[in-house]
């Protein structure tokens, strides 16, 4: 239940943040990588750094992460299949062999079928997700966004101390 409440909280905060729909969508798409791929991987440190460093919506990233974690669990068999097909494709073997014997790269666990499959899937999925999210945020703000902003429970949420912490990472315009 707490997870669902936090998810709703994150969703609302993200949708009403000051960022543009593009910033929010980029945050969601980057967060989706965190959610779709196994979290404890070196590439996710890079993704996290990008979320922090790039002027994208941090709440959007957290929203994308939260939404796509269960999706990642559900799609693990697909990721496993994709990774297996890629890692055992003969013409890619020299490429993977080079990566495997290169410093640092093996620490990314790229040679794990689920890690590679989920990363490839989330990178391919990044662009469509970005555009879909941007369209959705624009539509939301144009239709029911203002009414939600005027509601009592939204004001209660924004008045909390958590909101102040969040403002530290809000997108800059």
């Amino acid at each position, binding site marked *: 239940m707490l997870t669902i409440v936090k998810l709703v909280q994150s969703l609302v905060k993200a949708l009403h943040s000051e960022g543009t729909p593009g*910033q929010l969508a980029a945050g969601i798409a980057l967060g989706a990588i965190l959610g779709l791929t196994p979290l404890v991987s070196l590439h996710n440190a890079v993704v996290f750094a990008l979320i922090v*460093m790039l002027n994208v919506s941090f709440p959007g990233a957290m929203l994308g992460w939260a939404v796509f974690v269960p999706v990642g669990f559900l799609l693990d068999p697909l990721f496993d299949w994709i990774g297996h097909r890629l890692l055992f494709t003969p013409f890619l073997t020299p490429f993977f062999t*080079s990566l495997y014997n290169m410093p640092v790269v*093996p620490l990314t666990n790229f040679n794990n079928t689920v890690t590679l499959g989920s990363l490839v899937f989330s990178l391919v999925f990044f662009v469509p997700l970005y555009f879909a999210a941007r369209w959705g945020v624009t539509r939301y703000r144009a239709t029911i966004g203002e009414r939600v902003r005027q509601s009592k429970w939204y004001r209660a949420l924004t008045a909390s101390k958590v909101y102040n912490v969040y403002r530290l990472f809000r997108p800059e315009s």
Partner: protein
Amino acid sequence: MTVRIFRWRAIGPLLLFALLGGVLWLVFADRIARRAAERIGTAIVGAKVEIQDLHIDLKNGDVTVRGLTVASPHEALKNLFQADELVADIDVVPLLEKKVVIDRLAANGLRFGTPRTTDGRMAGRPDGISGRVLAETQRWSEQFQVPALQLATGKIDVGTLDPRNLSAIPAAQALTARADSSRRAWQTGLDNLRLGAAVDSAKATLARLRTARATDLAALNEARRAIDQLKQARNRVTVLERGVTSGAAVLRAGVAGVDSAKQRDYAFARGLLKLPSLDAPEIGLALFAPTAVAQFQRALYWTQLARAHMPPGLLPRADVGPPRTRRSGSTVRFPRAHALPGFLLRTAELSFQLDPTAPQPKRYAGRLTGLTSDPALYGRPTLFEASAPAISAGAMLDHVHATARDTAGATVQGVRLPVFQLPSLPMRLDPGQGTAQLGFALRGDTIRARWGVRSTHVQWARDSGAARSTVTDLVWTTLSRITDLQVDAGVSGTLASPRLSVRSNLDEAIAARLRAMVGDEVAAAERRLRAEVDRQVDPVIAPARARVTAVQTEVTARLAEQRGKLDQAQKDLEARIREMTRIRLP
């Protein structure tokens, strides 16, 4: 409105976050590495690997492990070994490639076979390599048919003889049917000869000849034709006789077949006797095969495990991925020629004790070289050797070439040997201090292994709660006087069809004692069974035999009678012709 791409003010918190991560790594690195080592070790061995303390000193490239315990994958409450301290001198740079290269490992205080309080086996997880190998070796060991030593009651039991299981009865019934069928066929053959018509015609011709004159050429020609007909009829009889002769031979063979079936029934009936094993090799198998097979199975387990983790060749190969909440997937290794292997232990110096419970445990030293996950990259086999005044052990895992060759051998003298619980016998054998030998070679899938035990101070203990019988009392009397023990077991052949042999000095002693005791009883039981077979089989065999004889006699007699009639008619005709054509001088 322009939107800036970078959020510069987040650099500070990000660096702080990275710094925090670094501090956490410094604080928890040892714990993380310890858990990873336990997890990986458990997956490799197939039993719990526990480490009390692990310390990483990256600056000096040292890893120190204290209190290492590796549970046995085969015995519930026993450790494979424990080690007081392991100090590894590792290369730091290969760690960046996720490769572990240990230049030198010093293992101190190794103790084998120590007891533990909890079950350390991981047999409930057959998903990994170790679980698969364990299941395979268990199936391999189940191939051996170990005979049971039946001494529980010492009674020789005569099983029930079911007439449906006797082969002589249906054989005799089939013979009777065949005799009847042959008789009908021969009777039909005799009828088809139409000998009566030929004989009657000859008699009529003879009657005319008696009244004819010598110049009656027509009568003479008719007589010659009648003789030709008689000859043709006799040829037909000859052909039928040949058929009868061969058919009679078949019937006689049938009689012999019934006799053979009766002999088989005797053998079958003897098999129903629940006899104790009287052959020395079978007794050896019954007594020591389970222990010997367990030794071979363990050696095979470690060898196959080594082959799974140290495969030959440089092709990409997949292992089960790391355990995590998400699906583990498969982790694929891509070895490359002239690159470092994923794991390499160049040299290990081992200091161990074989009998840690002894008042003054002796210390031994061993050396392991070239243990690697990619033998084709290392280019040399893995070698182990340990030698001391009372011990010699060596092993070679050669996976450099396509066909793996694994050999191991050990001879240990003057150590306390484990107690044997003899199957089917309510007694235990304590060999005390003695010599144990194990030789094991696996080339491809061809196995050759030998296990032996020698002791001169054997002690026997009888299970007080077990049921007593005359036979077990006698066996106890025999065995309890024996103070020497010599057991030799061997396995040869392929993994798919191995052959097991076991011999010991106890086999012949037990066999001779059993033969002396139960020989008369076995003979009496066999006599009873033969009489029972006769009682059930003879009422069917005797009529069949009589029927065959009767058919043969009857058909032979009828053929002789018909042939006699033909001969007589021809003889009469020829005599009359000679008489008519005799030249009479005036």
